[in-house]
């Protein structure tokens, strides 16, 4: 399981402030603490405070690369920001994200191919977020079709079923888990799958409990990656234990410790 640390996001006050003030130490400290806790990749999002998103994203990438060679996830809904900032990346990159809309795919897919990046594609389009599994699969299939047309390697594609908050769309959660299972059956080699985990618990009380329960269920369905908070120790412990039960890790007495040490 690839854990993409979500904490370097301008919507968090300290990160937003550091972006505005160009305070490298705050950003680097958060980057390092996420890696220390077991993150495989770091999501970078300038958030609402940024006046010049391209230059802020470049600064974030360069700042983070000074302290790690882990995967950088360039997170922006605007293809222009990604286009503008990607040249600054020396580390392996995942682009986050495109939708199933052709105009976005036409920019981001060739860009990902040119730079040898992975690409996160949300199974949604301009019409909005699908209401069930079938609509998600339909959009995912059209994304895969587009990738094949453009000769984009499917194993670099991360399909995101778009997780909804449990208090808003309770009916959808099972559909989302089943979508993950069926995304993997759409082609061979199978696409990878990813979720923005914390969305599920937006606005509710015990966020960590809901996050980790969903994560484990999604892992069983074949989830490959999650954008999540690696500092949530209980979440990470559950994720590692689920990997053990799914036989993706070799058991030993200190398996939690072993997993974390292996990531350093």
């Amino acid at each position, binding site marked *: 399981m690839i854990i993409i640390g979500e904490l370097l996001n301008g919507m968090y006050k300290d990160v937003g402030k550091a972006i505005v003030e160009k305070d490298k130490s705050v950003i680097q400290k958060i980057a390092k603490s996420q890696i220390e806790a077991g993150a495989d990749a770091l999501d970078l999002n300038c958030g609402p405070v940024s006046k010049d998103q391209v230059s802020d994203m470049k600064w974030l990438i360069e700042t983070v690369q000074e302290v790690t060679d882990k995967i950088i996830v360039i997170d922006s809904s605007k293809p222009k920001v990604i286009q503008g900032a990607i040249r600054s990346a020396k580390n392996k990159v995942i682009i986050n994200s495109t939708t199933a809309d052709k105009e976005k795919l036409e920019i981001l897919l060739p860009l990902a191919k040119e730079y040898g990046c992975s690409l996160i594609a949300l199974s949604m389009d301009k019409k909005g977020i699908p209401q069930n599994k079938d609509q998600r699969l339909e959009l995912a299939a059209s994304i895969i079709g587009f990738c094949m047309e453009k000769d984009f390697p499917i194993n670099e594609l991360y399909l995101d079923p778009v997780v909804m908050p449990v208090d808003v769309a309770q009916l959808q959660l099972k559909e989302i888990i089943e979508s993950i299972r069926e995304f993997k059956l759409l082609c061979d080699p199978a696409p990878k799958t990813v979720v923005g985990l914390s969305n599920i618990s937006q606005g509710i009380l015990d966020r960590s409990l809901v996050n980790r329960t969903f994560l484990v269920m999604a892992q069983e369905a074949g989830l490959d990656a999650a954008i999540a908070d690696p500092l949530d120790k209980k979440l990470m412990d559950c994720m590692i234990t689920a990997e053990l039960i799914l036989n993706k890790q070799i058991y030993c*007495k200190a398996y939690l410790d*072993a997993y974390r040490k292996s990531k350093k």
Partner: protein
Amino acid sequence: MLKELAQEKWSGKINSINIGATKEEGGSRTSVVKIGGQATLPFIFNDGDIPHRPVIAAEVWDIAPNDWSSTLNSELEDVYSDPVSWSKKLIDEFKVDLICLKLQGAHPDLGDRTPTQEVKLVKDIISNVGVPLIVIGCGDDSKDNLILPACTEATKGEKCLFGSAVQDNYKTLVAACQADGHNIIAESPIDINIAKQLNILIHEMGFGLDKIVINPTVGALGYGLEYAYSIMERARLAALTGDKMVAQPFICFSGPEAWRAKEAKASIEEHPEWGKELERGVIWEVLTSATFLQSGADILVMRHPKAISTVKGYITKLMEIK
């Protein structure tokens, strides 16, 4: 229909280890053995780098073995009494890459040789041969904790490979190897879970994961070979997908295991239907060793010169595929 050969892309790789140190590196070896570094399964050259070929270490004892088969005796008996000549014979005539000195005679039931005696022997071998040295204790924990630290100290700077650290007795040897700059063998009883746990325990003492060699304990053909094979395969797959706690090279004592098998030792008089013991024993050692090359052995510890030559040739052929 033509199908493309599926290619695996691995994210992890096996640790690289250097055994032996030259004069420039603070030791006195004339050759250094490099193992590990693979970024793919054994001999699957298309999927990733295989920087080093597997190597062969010849097993030499500090005392003359009295229970080895007549097939081994006929080749080696003349040098049993002198471990230095024994080592030289296998290096000069059969081009082994390392000597694996087993201090069997230190065992309280097998001669109870003293630390002073073993240190003298280790020093004799070091000053008379140029290849790197593997030193293995007698298997009696309390005795090993006396002789092995004495030997690590006597060979400080030579970057030997010392064994074996086991789950219930690893601290003394780890501390000694750490202090004197040697590599260590972590031995587990055909158990991948214990192998991983032991590596963590050793690592927690501040010992580098890149100085550990795993002895997974193997069984000979007919005596658990398949099980050992699958354990090694499982560890390799985990290592190549990023589990650093099992990403160590393997040492396999295929020779000693093969020669424990009745099929290798029994005389033709006992089992006429099995054919000549001279050929049979060597075949047993060759098959056992060759099998573990395919599951990822980096060092094979072997006994019979003919088996050593055959397996060495086989390794060369396998590496030519590259």
